[in-house]
């Protein structure tokens, strides 16, 4: 069993017998009072998002899911398609169920697909992924401060903050666990 101290983004727990993943997590504690653990949970079967607040002392049943090594193939109108590398069977997962993870899929990427019976309900991604910047405002000349940042959109449609020197067309590395910029990638 997990306790509140174990709660964090990405943790998978069972609620009413169904697997849920913590999509967003925050800890808060108003005025010397009891700690509150605020979670945005995604039902991994239907993608439904909802908020729930837990308090110290509550416990959680881990969602133990089978993981299969698969390769990401492509996206079509039904969702994101993966192929089992042993059986060559294909599994499709809807975008809503994948959440932000869908932005970090690259063609032919090897991932672990989480299975609930016969259904694929999520992926475990590599910790880092390289994606190309497709839109970002140009570097303002004279802006040399190392810490300055600006928004950028990458090829998957994901938007994040990058340093001001990152220009359109550049390949960047993103940490899939936090969704944040790590570095430019030399090509």
């Amino acid at each position, binding site marked *: 069993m997990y306790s509140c*101290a174990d709660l964090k983004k990405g943790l998978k727990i069972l609620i009413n017998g169904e697997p849920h993943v913590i999509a967003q997590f*925050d*800890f*808060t*504690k*108003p*005025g*010397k*009072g*009891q*700690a*509150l653990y*605020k979670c945005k949970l995604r039902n991994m079967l239907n993608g439904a998002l909802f908020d729930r*607040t837990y*308090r110290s002392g509550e416990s959680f049943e881990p969602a133990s899911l089978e993981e299969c090594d698969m390769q990401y193939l492509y996206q079509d109108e039904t969702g994101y398609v993966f192929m089992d590398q042993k059986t060559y069977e294909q599994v499709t997962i809807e975008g809503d169920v994948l959440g932000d993870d869908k932005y970090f899929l690259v063609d032919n990427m090897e991932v672990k697909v989480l299975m609930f019976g016969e259904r694929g309900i999520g992926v475990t991604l590599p910790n880092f992924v390289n994606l190309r910047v497709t839109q970002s405002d140009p570097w303002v000349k004279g802006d040399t*401060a*190392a*810490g*300055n*940042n600006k928004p950028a959109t990458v090829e998957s449609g994901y938007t994040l*903050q990058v*340093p001001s020197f990152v220009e359109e067309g550049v390949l960047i590395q993103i940490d899939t666990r936090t969704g*944040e*910029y*790590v*570095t*430019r990638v030399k090509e």
Partner: protein
Amino acid sequence: MNEINWAIARKREKLIARARIIQQIRAFFAQRDYLEVETPQRIPANAPEPHIDAVPSNDWVLQTSPELAMKRLLAAGHQRLFQICRVWRQGERGSQHLPEFTLLEWYRSQANYSALMDECEQLLLALAPTGAINWQGTDIQLTPPWDRLTVAEAFERYASLSLQQALSNDRFEEILTDEIEPRLGYKRPLFLTEYPAEMAALARKKPEHPEVAERFELYINGLEVANAFSELTDPVEQRQRFEQDEATRVGAGKPPQPLPEKFLREMHHLPDCAGIALGIDRLIMLLTEAKRIGDVVAFTPEEL
């Protein structure tokens, strides 16, 4: 070759602002005849708090607040004191919490919590010379006097339950966080006052309303920034409250800790006084438009 670590580098402007703000805070208190002190960070015991856990350090603990040491100095004859120090609270990590953070505490003899509200107004005006804090394009006006709202009024005005209902159903913190805090301190800062007496173990009860304590919390932009009391000066009552809170802790399965006997013994000499703890990191968040507390410190625990 790797790029520089951008997660660290991007905080440069915030750290420059942080250093400036802390210098201005020191100047503010020096001008008002406050003595800056340093007290030990590793101590035998903190005041027992039902919901705050200390980090053990050999057979002692790291401080969760310098409060007891500051009051012992007041009891030894100091009049006006301030301290900027690190404190540790186990397991507290969120967008507005760090398990190791920086507190500003100041104490003033012959004063009550109203005087500290006035001083908060003056301090913020000194740190924001335009007279406003700009947050995402809107101004939080700092011109005094700031709004004052009692906890009971806040529940009546904003919450789905009354204060009494929330307390008896053990939903005080939940309602406060979800329904009340998001409404506090947007046009101008707000003092939330008169907390239930049982929520302020070190505060004096309000003489004309002993069911509430002379305690306030300062809210700016929905963020809890400071906590203040008119200090309790009665050692007999203080011992009873400590024993009760310690029993609550032990009953909840937390390790027993010794009561701060030297503090209790010297408390006979504690003058009428008021004290306040202000979260420096959160104040810097507000003054630099940072959304996460990790953006205003050089390193978060995750970055170590």
